[in-house]
């Protein structure tokens, strides 16, 4: 268990997240991809903290910031999904294409 391995694991999570974000049609599934990316960030932040920062608390704080981002984005995201679904009956990116060009 070294910093590199931890980071590679995080990279794997980020990669999977990117795949999900780009490939999912449904907003919710897409957001899961984003969550997964942030999951990787959490792991990377703690990895850095644990192996590279001499335990400086900024590393943990970084993870908390990432968590806050995750929470905030998900909360507002779900609210938007609700609003969009209510007004447009749309739940995939393809069904929301009035604004274009």
């Amino acid at each position, binding site marked *: *268990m070294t*910093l*590199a*391995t*931890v*980071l*590679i*694991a995080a*990279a*794997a*999570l*980020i*990669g*999977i*997240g*990117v*795949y*999900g*974000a*780009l*490939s*999912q*049609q*449904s907003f*919710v*599934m897409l957001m*899961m*991809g984003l*969550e*997964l990316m942030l*999951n990787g960030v959490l*792991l990377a932040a*703690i990895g850095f*903290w*644990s*192996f*590279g*920062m*001499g*335990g400086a*608390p*900024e590393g*943990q*704080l970084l*993870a*908390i*910031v990432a*968590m*806050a981002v*995750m*929470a*905030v984005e*998900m909360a*507002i995201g*779900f*609210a938007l999904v609700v609003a969009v679904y*209510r007004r447009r009956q749309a*739940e*995939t990116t393809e069904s929301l294409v*009035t604004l274009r060009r």
Partner: protein
Amino acid sequence: MELKDLAFLALAAAAAWTGWRVFRTDSMVRASFALMLSFIAVGAIMLLLAAPYIGIATVFMMAVEMMVMALFMVMFMMNPAGLNPMRMVHQNGLAAAAGAGTFAALTAAILLSDLPADPVDPARPVIHDLGIELLGKSMLIFETAGITLLATMVGAVILSSRSGRYGPADDGALPPPLTPGGRPAGGLPEDGP
């Protein structure tokens, strides 16, 4: 190889695998549970990495969040229980390439870079440190995060809550009409692209 390493490898593999499963199931509920498992695995790794507070916070937070998400599916989505097989993807190849590319690029960069080596002292009171940091040096960040959460709550309520104090909250949420009594300007979906 120590036990710790083995545990890390197993947990990392579990996190990745469950993460992958998120996009390979037919049901959103299952997907959200898979995501939760991935988070729990990461939380466990954090514990291994001597970050108990963050790890546990992650586990709890994600558990709650995924519950909400699952509930959400049930409430709103068309395939609540995952009873019918469904898979909704687009540009799958490109997305896979992008994911793989991201992973490859990050991995290569990790392997090619000089990574810092300054491990945390096991004796260090890490949770105490975090508390001091949060309310001391990084208080402004913490405060900003607090405001952000407040704003998020307000925003989420505004956007999702259907009923207001004065009846249906969305009714008047429209641009003013171009001429009184008319329709607001702008092309609508039903007008076609």
